[in-house]
């Protein structure tokens, strides 16, 4: 009996402890777990599904995209919908994991999804694209940038592909004469990072700079970067290219700083979000450049409105992923309108109509003016470079 009391007490301690940590949770309203299919599948509307990580290591991307897409859906519905038909948006969590992403896809299919706006990250996107092409369901990924994300002909994307990002980064560095000696630190276990690196190295041959070090790390080995940084340092790199995600980049910046390595860091869209890392010393990110199609401080009407709305709804400055999500929904709306789709058409008919329409539309988006698509599903738009100044992303001159 006494032992039972002891174990009950211990269990209670555990429970209290788990509550004690809750202090910093209340402020984070977007992070609560989503219930399954809690959005009602309203009849007579277009049912749009979304998939991405709103928990897990990549949660910043998923949350931003969900929020950006939701703003676009609300705007379109307020303005009367697409050809008078409203949109219903249901976003499911996949934690950035391919298997969970396919589960989320199946859930959404059960819900009645007709169009998919997802997925947020590359690896799950490739898995889901294989499923959606079997179902012939129209899919547009806001930020799945690996080449294979738009392998099937029903899949389109809003962002640049990894190869594009690599090429454009190298071009940008070369044309603006940012550096003579460039070092690369990349994640060889990640398709996004290695995809960019390959193209970057290839394009670098054409440009007026030299790659002095190309150092890798893997998913199992991503806390200690001392060797990679020291190699870049000893080769005298005046620019370090980081085609990686922000969590590792934050560590690299801290470790480079403690090693006294002063250089310029240049990254791609994966670095977007680095300022959102809690308790991160933003001074370390000062001067970091990244190639991204969206800058929150741009002065055009569209961006200003979007940023204001986003701040009001979610209390923070939107990053590129929010803009990708927003543009994806507008692309869907434009294609639905052009293809004269009706919500009672079959999934496959909608897909056929939209596939054709996508190559004919041109949208004024947050991530580019007059974005157009070709049959492969890739967008045509210009890249912008952004530099982190005074703790905010600002457009480079």
């Amino acid at each position, binding site marked *: 009996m006494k032992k039972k009391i*002891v*174990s009950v007490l*211990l*269990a209670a*301690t*555990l429970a209290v*402890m*788990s509550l004690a*940590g*809750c*202090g*910093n*949770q209340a402020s*984070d309203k977007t*992070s609560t*777990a989503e219930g399954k299919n809690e959005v009602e599948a309203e009849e007579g509307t277009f049912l749009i599904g979304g998939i991405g*990580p709103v*928990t*897990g*290591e*990549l*949660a*910043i991307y998923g949350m931003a995209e969900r929020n950006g897409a939701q703003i676009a859906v609300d705007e379109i519905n307020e303005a009367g919908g697409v050809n008078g038909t409203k949109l219903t948006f249901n976003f499911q969590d996949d*934690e950035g994991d391919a298997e969970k992403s396919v589960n989320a896809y199946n859930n959404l299919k059960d819900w009645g999804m007709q169009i998919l706006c997802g997925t947020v990250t590359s690896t799950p996107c490739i898995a889901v694209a294989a499923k959606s092409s079997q179902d012939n369901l129209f899919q547009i990924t806001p930020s799945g940038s690996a080449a294979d994300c738009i392998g099937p002909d029903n899949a389109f994307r809003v962002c640049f592909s990894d190869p594009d990002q690599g090429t454009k980064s190298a071009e940008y560095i070369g044309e603006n004469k940012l550096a003579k000696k460039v070092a690369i630190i990349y994640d*060889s276990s990640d398709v996004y990072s290695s995809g960019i690196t390959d193209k970057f190295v290839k394009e670098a041959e054409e440009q007026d700079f030299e790659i002095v070090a190309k*150092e*890798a*790390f*893997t998913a*199992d*080995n991503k*806390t*200690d970067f*001392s*060797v*990679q940084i*020291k*190699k870049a340092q*000893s080769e005298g790199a005046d620019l370090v290219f980081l085609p990686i995600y922000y*969590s590792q980049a*934050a*560590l690299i910046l*801290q470790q480079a700083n*403690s*090693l*006294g390595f002063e250089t310029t860091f240049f990254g791609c869209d994966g670095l977007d979000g680095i300022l*959102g*890392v*809690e*308790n*991160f*010393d933003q001074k370390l990110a000062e001067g970091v450049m990244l190639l991204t199609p969206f800058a929150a401080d741009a002065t055009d009407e569209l961006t200003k409105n979007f940023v204001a709305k986003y701040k009001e709804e979610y209390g923070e400055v939107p990053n590129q992923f929010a803009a990708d999500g927003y543009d994806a929904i507008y692309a869907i709306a434009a294609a639905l309108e052009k293809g004269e789709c009706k919500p009672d058409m079959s999934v496959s008919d909608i897909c056929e109509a939209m596939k054709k329409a996508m190559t004919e539309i041109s949208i004024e988006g947050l991530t580019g003016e007059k974005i157009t698509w070709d049959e492969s599903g890739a967008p045509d738009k210009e890249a912008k470079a952004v530099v982190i100044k005074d703790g905010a992303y600002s457009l480079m001159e």
Partner: protein
Amino acid sequence: MGFISYLIDGISLGSVYALIALGYTMVYGIAKMLNFAHGDVIMIGGYTVYTIVSTMGLSPWLGMAASVVVCTVLGVAVEKIAYKPLRMASPLAVLITAIGVSYFLQNMGLLIFTASPKAFTSVVSISNIKLADGALNISGVTLVTIITCIIIMIALMFFIKKTKAGRAMVAVSEDKGAALLMGIDVNSTISLTFAIGSGLAAVAGFLLCSAYPTLTPYTGAMPGIKAFVAAVFGGIGSIPGAFIGGILLGIIEILSKAYISSQLSDAIVFLVLILVLLIKPTGILGKEIHEKV
């Protein structure tokens, strides 16, 4: 100079592995079970310090003390709830339970602290030591980690050899049944082992997070596995073995990254492990136990 500087990096990475491996080897040596949740107790320790120091703005000393208390209570609770009922079950069942506990703690971390990474403020305020005109740089955290490691190692060896509770632990590890007959309270001895092991995990937690200052619910998982490898490398169950194994593992990892390939470093680390185990199956300092017939 490059070599020495890489060597120092290796030692600083290795000292973190060694510190975690001490907790692993302690629990394995006494309770004869692999506590795969050890790495996740480390993560909880890190978050405790983060909550107290960064969220509540209190002193790091208070944070460290609280973290040791929280982890100790957590370790004992996990042992009582998840492992004790399985005392008589096969070792495989306990191993699977430990993996379950590990996932439970990770997911609890996800629920409470969310997945977004937190930048950890170092609890060590000793500045870096620069040698040879700044060509060699030893961080304060590394020094503290190595010294802590050595103190803990000596204290543990003293505790096990000289104190009554420590000798009871050795007795339990050798033969639970006989220890019980000699009047040793096996259950409370194993609880004490878990309490010490988890307290060490808390120390490893805040030193790990000070050295590599990003905290996520998965922070403890990979270093935990590496430290387990280090413990096997040094001879699991042996306390000085864990220290040596940890340091060697760190050095091999960094040197293979620096001189062979940054992509292959893990493959090389595990290759060395296989070689060591082929030559000396019980690890560097492991005892060979001959079965008496």
